[in-house]
């Protein structure tokens, strides 16, 4: 069983590879990072991410609005409800929700091939009446899907961070978010390192909840830091 520490080192490496590729692309090929980021933001996963964050933020604001309407005379109601705080907290929650989905996605989706092999394939075989060998199918197909989510998500995340950092001129506001996503994605990376059998993939998740706790703390700090730049 390969350890979480090794997986974490590898995850940091993959993230840094994505980050470096973005910087190289921007500086070596003289590409405008704003244009490149615009292209990235038009892709479906990026659109989904932004929409999710906005939806959560709007939902929180709508709920608060229903309970305590936005004051028309801010000075008068300042003592009752500081609406800027509501906007700030709701934006933070929006960012947090989207980062949590990304981080847990990288951590948990390596389990999908295991689930597929155990649940879907037998059902499919029963349907078609064909026989199959689970070990052979795992070795031939399914195990190759295990490393994809953490590697792709971390690499893509690093690439996007490099573009945002190039435009903004700083990276430190994103540091807790990066730490949170990388720590949680390292659980997925640990599964990827232990891809030999479905059982070894499953047993890689023994530390998931403990790591999740610390990662979510990082993500919360990151969300509150980033939201402060927006609101």
């Amino acid at each position: 069983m390969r350890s979480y520490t090794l997986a974490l080192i590898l995850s940091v490496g993959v993230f840094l590879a994505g980050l470096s590729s973005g910087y190289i692309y921007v500086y070596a090929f003289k590409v405008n990072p704003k244009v490149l980021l615009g292209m990235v933001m038009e892709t479906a996963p990026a659109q989904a991410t932004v929409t999710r964050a906005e939806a959560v933020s709007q939902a929180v604001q709508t709920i608060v609005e229903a309970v305590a309407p936005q004051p028309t005379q801010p000075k008068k109601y300042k003592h009752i409800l500081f609406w800027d705080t509501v906007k700030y907290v709701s934006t933070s929650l929006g960012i947090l929700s989207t980062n949590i989905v990304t981080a847990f996605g990288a951590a948990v989706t390596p389990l999908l091939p295991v689930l597929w092999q155990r649940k879907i394939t037998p059902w499919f075989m029963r349907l078609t009446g064909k026989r199959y060998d689970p070990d052979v199918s795992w070795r031939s197909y399914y195990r190759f899907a295990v490393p994809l989510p953490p590697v792709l998500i971390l690499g893509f995340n690093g690439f996007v961070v490099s573009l945002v950092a190039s435009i903004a001129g700083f990276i430190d506001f994103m540091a807790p978010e990066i730490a949170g996503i990388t720590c949680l994605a390292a659980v997925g990376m640990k599964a990827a390192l232990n891809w030999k059998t479905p059982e070894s993939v499953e047993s890689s998740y023994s530390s998931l909840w403990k790591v999740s706790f610390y990662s979510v703390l990082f993500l919360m700090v990151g969300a509150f830091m980033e939201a402060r730049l927006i609101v």
Partner: protein
Amino acid sequence: MLKTNPFNMFWRSPIIVMMATPLIFLAVRLSLVPVAWPSKLPTECINPEGGFEGCGFIFDEAHYIPAIRRMMIGDRAVNLEHPPLSKAIIWFGIALLGDNPWGWRILNVLFSALTVFIAGLLAYRFTKSLRTSVIAQAFLTTDITFFNISGFAILDPPALFFITLTLYLYVSGRWLLSSIPLGLAMLSKSSSILVIPAILGIEMAYPVINGGRISDLIDKARKVIRVIVIPALVIFLFGLGVYNAWSGAFPTPLHHLDFILRYHSGLVFQDPRPVEMPLSWIMPPIARQPSPYYVVTAHPPGWHPVAFWGVSTPLWWSIWLLIPLAYIFIRDNRPIPNPSLEAVFMAWTVVTYGSFMALAYIYHRWVYSFYFLQVSTLMAVVLPALLEKNGLRLILKIILALQVLWFIMWFPVKPEWFLDFMLNLGLGEVPWI
């Protein structure tokens, strides 16, 4: 029968050995006091309208020396946004040696030498090793930002001394006594107030780590508040009260405190790019340029005969190593004793550095890299102690060598041959500049 020579015993006593580094520090730092010398008369350097060119001020001295001069001529209610003790100390120096850089800076250099001494005592208190204590002093002395700041006529050198003394007395178990320097630290610089939650954090960390009950936690907090916090606040408010009675600035010390808090709450930034954000403090100066406290440029050839920079150091970067080491020790050695070096370091760092992070990243308050001295002074003690404890002597030697090299590279006044050497190596005068 073993004969003991009292003379040898005296010279080998830890206190005497630990005085060597502060004395060397004192000699070297004092030699740099006159490098920024005014060409104007003191009376021409009181009001900022004409600028302070030629006044010989370094960094924030431009705020404090004119304020002290105004106080000396009877305009007592000035620079109210900062507590008065550090300014009183600078004033005392001026009264002793005159209104010149010697008078402005000498007492702060002395306070900083004492800080180095107390840091050695603190390391000795934790490790009982003279070698570790001297290395700790060496780390602090060669911290170039500490070295530079230590000789400026600003608020930080006395505040750092009182903070370090508070910490030493606190870990020595002399809690009531520690409240005196804590009160004086708050009277020197308002950010010293972070020491209160830091000590509370340390004391409350033990029941949390050792699996104590909530009632233990509350008892600890109550004891710290009763024995340290309340006496320190009384000293602080009494000091503010004395200043206000003398200056007539505010009717009560609480009004003054309210003004200080309001003033500091207003120092927010919109664009974070020019701000020395806290994460840049614990990284080499790649993303952000070092801060030029006082830089004289010679044209040509364009090098700096005098250059006081504020820059992070290998000691500061070592936080990436110290936090995991301390965490692993705490995780694997429960119940931990009180005081424990690791618990003190973790709680102190989380509270002080964490507060600066929250202030900068969430509250968007202006912060400066030298604020990290409040953390790095303790780190100078913790770094050799933890590395020796974990048998990582080679790493300790490498970091110390790096620290010394870094110190030489950024030393404020460099001989011409050294500058030529650096330029010939293609490094520039110092890298990144």
